[in-house]
């Protein structure tokens, strides 16, 4: 609904009906005047972004990336609304509710489905962007993060990836030359590498799984164990399949049976990743662990070694930031031009470099930046294994319940089966709404 408070001032009326009418009117009005017939564009484009924040990001965008765009389109002006991921949803919500939607919106993997399914995003395939053309530049799995019902709605700028990492020096001390190659080895190494002092206090976790958001951590194991979040046709949850339950049970056992880490030993709020100060020998990590390492412990550069957590298949998780065009925009083609510029090799390389993230474009594997960042390089070399979150439009309603469910299992409040079944029931209900 557009605005009941507004109507409250203007005059009464049946709530939903007028709201819907208002929505149509506003959608028609758009956000400004002018229009263009392709070719030369002019006017102002608005961009809402959770990245490029802070002075560094802003400088990058406004002094390097956008000037290159203006060279091509001198009559366009881009007005940027900076936010952070922490408040992106509030910005998106108010924008969509008021009908004042920016021409371009950057959002995360998993957001696109809901926004596309409800007609907020422009169908880029109708503007000439096809999956086939994107598959030449990106890994198909990544392209799918912006595809809904066969049409492209979003272009990837950068990826956040999660995979296994070990401290090779700690492994070497224990006589292991290589990271574990399967889940059984992972369990065995982790048990071996766990250090407790005399009173049983954990001093070094054999395998750290608590420093990362529990949903994303679990998903790495879910994928590694051959499970998936939803059925192929996205009609029902699939994480409570035997593979999914087994993956969660594996994590529960790591904590309760093998005791390779204690609840509370680390958390997503931990200011230091335990791998960096030797408080963990192995763990699930994010590619920008490298940034923290460079800043705080550059001497460890040779000791942090990434690996693929492998069950029945290698598991890697990717999320990321994509750029979309508003369905409301009266300058969709100009907006698409900017979106393509932001995802171009040069611009996306700069953005990734600033944040220590993984470029989505395959052609950037050889860039100096990727070659100088072992974790990013590793992620890019193994992108064929990467799987993403999301799928159904209701994903945003489901994902928030994941962490409490995984946590309940890890705490022993529920069995792995029970936790995932309850979660699946909630997901099914959400998907039926």
């Amino acid at each position, binding site marked *: 609904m*557009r*605005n*009941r*408070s*507004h109507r409250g*001032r*203007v005059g009464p009326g049946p709530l939903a009906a007028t709201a819907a009418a208002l929505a149509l*009117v*506003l959608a028609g*009005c758009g956000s400004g005047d002018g229009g263009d017939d392709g070719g030369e564009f002019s006017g102002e484009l*608005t961009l*809402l972004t959770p990245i490029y*924040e*802070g*002075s*560094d990001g*802003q400088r990058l965008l406004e002094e390097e990336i956008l000037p290159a765009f203006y060279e091509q389109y001198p009559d366009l002006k881009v*007005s*940027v*609304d*900076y*936010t*952070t*991921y*922490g*408040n992106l949803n*509030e*910005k998106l*919500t*108010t924008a969509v*509710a*008021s009908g*004042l939607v*920016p021409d371009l919106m950057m959002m995360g993997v998993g957001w696109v489905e809901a926004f596309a399914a409800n007609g907020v995003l422009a169908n880029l395939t109708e503007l000439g962007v096809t999956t086939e053309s994107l598959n030449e530049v990106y890994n198909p799995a990544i392209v799918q993060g912006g595809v809904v019902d066969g049409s492209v709605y979003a272009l990837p700028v950068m990826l*956040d990836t999660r995979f296994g990492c070990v401290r090779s020096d700690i492994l070497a001390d224990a006589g292991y030359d290589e990271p574990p190659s399967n889940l059984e080895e992972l369990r065995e190494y982790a048990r071996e590498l766990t250090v407790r002092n005399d009173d049983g206090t954990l001093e070094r976790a054999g395998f750290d799984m608590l420093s990362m958001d529990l949903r994303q951590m679990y998903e790495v194991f879910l994928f590694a164990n051959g499970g998936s979040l939803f059925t192929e046709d996205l009609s029902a949850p699939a994480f409570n399949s035997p593979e999914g339950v087994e993956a969660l049970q594996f994590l529960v056992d790591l904590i309760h049976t093998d005791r390779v880490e204690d609840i509370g030993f680390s958390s997503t709020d931990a*200011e*230091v990743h335990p791998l*960096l*100060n*030797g*408080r963990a020998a192995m763990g699930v990590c*994010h590619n*920008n662990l490298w*940034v*923290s390492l460079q*800043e*705080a*412990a550059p001497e460890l550069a040779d000791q942090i070694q990434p690996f693929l957590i492998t069950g029945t298949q290698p598991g890697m998780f990717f999320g990321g930031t994509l750029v979309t065009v508003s369905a409301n925009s009266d300058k969709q083609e100009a907006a698409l031009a900017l979106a393509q510029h932001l995802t171009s090799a040069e611009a996306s390389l700069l953005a990734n470099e600033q*944040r*220590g993230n993984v470029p989505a474009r395959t052609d950037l594997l050889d860039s100096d930046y990727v070659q100088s960042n072992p974790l990013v390089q590793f992620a890019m070399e193994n992108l064929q294994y990467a799987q993403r979150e999301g799928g159904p439009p209701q994903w945003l309603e489901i994902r928030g319940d994941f962490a409490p469910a995984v946590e309940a299992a890890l705490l022993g409040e529920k069995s792995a089966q029970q936790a995932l079944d309850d979660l699946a029931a909630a997901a099914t209900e959400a998907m039926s709404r």
Partner: protein
Amino acid sequence: MTAATAPANAAPAPSRESLVVRRILTKLGLHIVLLFSALTMLVPFLWMVLTSVKSPTELLQFPPTFWPEEWVWDNYAKALDAAPFVTYFRNSLFISIGHTAMNVVLASMAGYALARLPIRGREVAFIFIIAMMMIPTYTKIVPQFLIVKFMPLFGGNDIFGQGGSGWLNTWWALIIPGGLTPFAIFLFRQFYLTLPSELEEAARIDGLGEVRIYAQVYTPLIKPAIATVALLTFQDSWNNFLWPLIVTTRDDLRVIQVGLAVFQQQENTQWHYLMAGTTLATVPMVLLFLVAQRYFIQGFTNTGIK
């Protein structure tokens, strides 16, 4: 440890010396308790300040150091460079001053009326004001945003609020909606209630109008309440974050807390910078408190009347 609101006074004294000893012991005990409590309250801030001058390498250490091995004052310079803090600081200051001025004037007027003037429906109005505190920010924020966006005749809007952006990206949106809080109305009402009614009767005999009785007779008597409302309003809007972020799209209208959010990226919080920035943002508020608390001095209001 006992309460003592009255000035020191004579108890039925046994002997002069034991009395002195007792008073010294009482004072000493009082200071010990206060010092302990103050430290309890201060430890987190101490940690914040100490963290703000540590290097990332030192933050990595386990177990962590309490006292910095090396004082990296550079963190402050770097934190200030991470966002346009001069602009943000100025904006926060404008908004806070605007909110404070509006709130003190409008809320004290309303509080006075609710406390002392025999208007019909006073109780209903009072309950209404309290009830307006009971809906969480997150529920109100979208409707409030829509009111701002559809503000008629502003920002290219027509009389029905269509066609433009209303108050978005304006100082109006930053200052007006948050410029009055039910909290302040309620607080002023309670303070006006405690004053004696003899004053107004006398003032009426002297021929003072009702509004002047409010402004010149009663309001000067509640300076501590004014100081309280001013302090709390200023500080709330200083720390406000979400509303300024939502109703603006331009960076030159953003506020200091938005700048601090830059240090908390999704997967990587820059603790040393965040703490340096927060320390800097807190200093003006502490100074403000030290100024405001001077109004809380025993006898202040009484001397004002006599």
